[in-house]
């Protein structure tokens, strides 16, 4: 249970980190919060020959409002996200979901950027990025680019970053008016990996009909799974339990592809998805009527 040897670099600016990545893209691994990387290194599942530690780069850790978006530095700790008043007010879905991310000790170290780039299909943050239509800013030595969350997750533990790119910022649009939210998951114990989970958003129009909906699932495929067709079934409708059930059946039977694991068979995961979808849609719709 000891990591293999590696060369350690600890830049104190983004420029230095990008220069190191430019030079060592093939060997280097970024060390953010380390809450997934270090266990993998302890098991020697991962043996990077070089670590570039971003923890001393103060300019990567911030949460601030800017016009009608929130900008979050990639090295902001999950614990800061959990307690940030702007996030609670502007993106209540993220605020409500944050305590579900592992345990307090892990959230004290774990970073928003680290979890997003790790792209664990069972993790909460990739699902939330998709649900919130986040934009992700990647930088390398020669420039920067923005990637929509829907184009960012490219499969199991895989994202659309080039080897020399670093995720530096997450842009979260404020929740639209009349938008309700819900985050629900079922885990064997609080803080453990969930067997199934859902992030749901419902936006109502002025007449009270559904303008748009979003249903994104964790541990339901090889990345966060956006049930686009099920969400579409709700659009333009006056929402009710019957519609929630139809959307839940469609999403759980046709759109998610859970693999099953030692805690839950794929069938049970589909069952959980169906139940959670109905409850989450009900809660989100109720809240949309209140805000």
């Amino acid at each position, binding site marked *: *249970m*000891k*990591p*293999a*040897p*590696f*060369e*350690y670099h*600890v830049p104190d600016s983004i420029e230095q980190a990008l220069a190191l990545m430019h030079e060592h893209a093939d060997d280097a691994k970024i*060390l953010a919060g*380390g*809450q997934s990387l*270090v*266990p993998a*290194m*302890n*098991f020697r599942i991962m043996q990077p020959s070089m*670590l570039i*530690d971003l*923890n001393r780069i103060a300019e990567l850790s911030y949460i601030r409002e800017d016009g009608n978006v929130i900008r979050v530095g990639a090295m902001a700790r999950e*614990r800061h996200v959990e307690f940030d008043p702007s996030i609670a007010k502007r993106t209540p879905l993220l605020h409500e979901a944050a*305590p579900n991310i*592992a*345990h*307090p*000790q*892990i959230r*004290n*170290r774990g970073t928003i950027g680290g979890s997003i780039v790790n792209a664990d299909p069972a993790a909460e943050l990739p699902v939330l990025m998709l649900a919130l239509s986040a934009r992700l800013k990647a930088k390398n030595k020669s420039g920067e680019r923005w990637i929509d969350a829907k184009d960012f997750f490219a499969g199991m533990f895989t994202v659309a970053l080039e080897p020399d790119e670093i995720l530096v910022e997450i842009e979260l649009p404020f929740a639209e008016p009349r938008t309700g939210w819900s985050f629900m998951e079922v885990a064997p*114990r*609080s*803080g453990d990996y969930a067997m199934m989970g859902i992030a749901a958003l419902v936006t109502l129009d002025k007449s009270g009909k559904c303008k748009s909906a979003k249903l994104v699932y964790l541990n339901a495929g090889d990345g966060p799974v956006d049930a686009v067709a099920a969400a579409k079934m709700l659009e333009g409708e006056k929402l009710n339990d019957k519609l929630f059930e139809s959307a839940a059946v469609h999403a759980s039977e046709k759109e998610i592809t859970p693999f099953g694991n030692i805690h839950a068979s794929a069938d049970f995961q589909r069952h959980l998805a169906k139940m959670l979808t109905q409850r989450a849609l009900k809660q989100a719709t109720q809240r949309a009527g209140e805000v």
Partner: protein
Amino acid sequence: MTQSVTVTIKVNETEYSREVEPRMLLSDFLRHELGLTGTHVGCEHGVCGACTIMFDGESARSCLMFAVQADAHNITTVEGLASDQENLHPLQQSFWEAHGLQCGYCTPGILMTLVPFLKQNPNPTEEEIRHAISGNLCRCTGYQHIVDAVKLAAEKMQVVE
């Protein structure tokens, strides 16, 4: 073997400088380099919570950090809680009185999780306590006496303040 680096880490208000390999975990640094064996090592992959310490005042897994990352930072371990052998921290005293431990393996990690927790939540509900210790495994107590000990500690600490 990669090149060793010099780190200077403040542990329980004492500064220590040591040469370490970058791959040395903070948990191993505390135990093997400093002889502070109160920090226990269970699973070494962040699940059991036995190695929990305070990093700049916040609870963290010392098995999921490298000692080099603690350079110029402040660490508190269980050895830093009591002022001396006669005067335990009120949380330790409460664990003693309420039978919050049996074998004691998980206890240091639980204490180091709860000290910052009680600072932020001086009057916690049972549910909040159970959520706070969700990242610490105890195989003896069934947790009930731990919860009782935390409630007792919250009372004691409010009287002190």
